[in-house]
């Protein structure tokens, strides 16, 4: 008789529900709430580089001045077991208070802000403005030969915008990386 164990039969059942050997990389957005002390960002980044994990984007800012808390939002990629390991390793860092996986813990919203400089004249310039309008991008700087557009949205929306602007003279861009929150109360 072989021993059997029910799937998802422990409080750590999240581990058991997915194929542990799956080799498919998933994209996860993690919210890491940390003590705002010197070096904390270096610890988080050092963990990713030291253990060879990917960072697609990373944003950080203080969110509670009184409580000395900052929030780091990390978009990472890895197989399911690597993602579990990344969360466990983050949780080990002493000034890390909470680690949330916004990708698995229910619906969430993600936004990124981007600044895009498009240089050009004539038709290209008109077309750039028209597309910007469709994407609800704002013009935050303009000269006779260039615009700087500001746009907020999901990373995919920003990617799409950049793609369309490229043939129209996209010459520079700056993006903040993803900020994300769980939906609902």
């Amino acid at each position, binding site marked *: 008789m072989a021993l059997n*164990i029910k799937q998802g039969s422990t409080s750590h059942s999240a581990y058991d529900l997915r194929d542990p050997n799956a080799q498919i990389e998933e994209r996860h957005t993690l919210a890491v709430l940390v003590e705002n002390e010197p070096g904390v960002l270096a610890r988080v980044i050092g963990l990713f580089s030291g253990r060879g994990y990917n960072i697609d984007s990373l944003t950080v800012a203080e969110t509670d001045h009184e409580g000395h808390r900052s929030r780091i939002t990390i978009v990472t990629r890895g197989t399911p077991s690597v993602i579990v390991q990344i969360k466990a390793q983050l949780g080990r860092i002493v000034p890390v208070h909470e680690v949330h996986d916004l990708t698995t813990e229910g619906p969430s919203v993600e936004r990124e802000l981007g600044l895009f400089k498009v240089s050009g004249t004539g038709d290209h310039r008109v077309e750039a403005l028209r597309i910007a309008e469709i994407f609800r991008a704002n013009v935050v700087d303009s000269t006779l030969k260039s615009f700087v557009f500001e746009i907020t949205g999901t990373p995919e929306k920003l990617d799409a915008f950049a793609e369309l602007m490229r043939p129209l003279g996209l010459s520079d861009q700056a993006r903040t990386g993803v900020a994300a929150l769980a939906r609902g109360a």
Partner: protein
Amino acid sequence: MSRKMTGARMIVEALRDQGVDTVFGYPGGAVLPIYDELFQQNDIQHILVRHEQGAVHMAEGYARSTGKPGVVLVTSGPGATNAVTGMTDALLDSIPLVVLSGQVPTFLVGTDGFQEADTVGITRPCTKHNWLVKDTSKLSATIHQAFNVATSGRPGPVLVDIPKDVQFAEAEYVGPKQVDTTNYQPRRKGDPDAITRLVELMEQAERPIFYTGGGVINSGAGASQLLREIVDATGFPVTSTLMGLGAYPASGRNWLGMLGMHGMYEANLAMHGCDLMIAVGARFDDRITGRVADFSPDSIKAQIDIDPSSINKIVHVELPIQGDVGHVLEDMLKIWKSRGRKTNSEAVRKWWSQIEQWREVKCLAYTNSDTIIKPQHALERLEALTKGRDRYIATEVGQHQMWAAQFLHFEDPNRWMTSGGLGTMGYGLPASVGVQVAHPDALVINVAGDASWLMNMQEMGTAVQFRAPVKQFILNNERLGMVRQWQQLLHGERYSQSWSDSLPDFVKLAEAFGCKGRQVSDPAELDDAIQEMIDYDGPFILDVLVEKHENCFPMIPSGKPHNEMLLSPEAEAFTGGGALV
């Protein structure tokens, strides 16, 4: 009552309040105020080492043999960088250490000041946590928090970097009870549902095995006691990693011996063939798993570990239980008893008879000689001549380390000090000194290889100065034996740089340090030499000239599965020389 004092005095005060009796260290400009305070008190002894790496390994030996954190004090720059190897060693082996380093004054930080190094930056990846204290008013609380972090949850080394002006300035001292450590409190109790699930599996298992590790030792003496109780009550076989030796006694009925790359044939095959593996404070290191895809293919695996990052890291486990070994075993035993102490005893009996067959292979068999000392024989004699004594063993790294793990038997936890995770040559001598400082009357032996021993031999001076009668048992094969073995077996016998040329005369070296030495090469004199070493009232170096080309078996080459183990020709004879299993 105001307790205003300088930062330097605060440090000594905080150490005293933390119950520290010994500091291992080395002075320098950036810690002179602290040394000045140490000079003016008598509660804390300072062991002056010869190199800061030695201080850290001594503190590791002290910590592993007592269960208390080891404390190290070093100066800025080179003092701190010399301590890096030791801290990395302690991090990988989960040894609690508090390292205090001096730093250039705050107003010089970042200016490439004299003996300035970015100590907090350099040691971030090799400590569990570290702090740079810029304000004396935060110093005592930080030190108390450092002790808390080093010792709670999965233990590890921490470092507090203290600029010199912070040591001079005055502030209010804060005692350990006034410090809020609630923001770092890892969970200790396991999930009762999961423990019950494990007990259910234990009741049904046909081929169960306990796979125990260093976490049992980390959890304290109570955990080893509980492990013994549960193993003996269930009758399940038990094996251990290198780091867990002594948690279950080697004389115990259910003991299979160490598992892994150089582990026992029966232990590895039992791991391979089990249907329920209960990992207790063990982290599925690659020296254990071999090729992961073939690791124990037919078992359900449960893992008790206090660190979630150890769970499901290498091997997928079906039943993870996050918690402290002692707490979880206590609950496990309670639940198992309350459900009627059931096991599938018929099947387990069959399992044992299978294991007994594997045992017949006698995997540690070797051919003895009466003209040359075999290293295995030297250890068997050491075991025989020290049996029954409360004996502490440290090792260096290499073949001798593995033979020590195979041929010496440990009855209690905290008696075995070895560098497992980092495999740091040069660990053993200083570790033995640290153990001896903590246990002045005990018999403390460092089983060494010639090459490893040289790496921190300067610490012999420390042993002599502090009258630490450590015994250095050097299995001298004039080779970097472990490297030579790999080259023989895996690199076409091309012995690139793996011999020890120009070795010192260890007997003269002992005399030069002011202690005693003896060389032995005749098997007939071995016992007498070992006895002289044991009886000598002081540090002793025994240079045992052993067979130069002996290999350490069994051996599972890296990346191979457990059932593709290499055996010695002597053991091979028992299996008929064919494939195994």
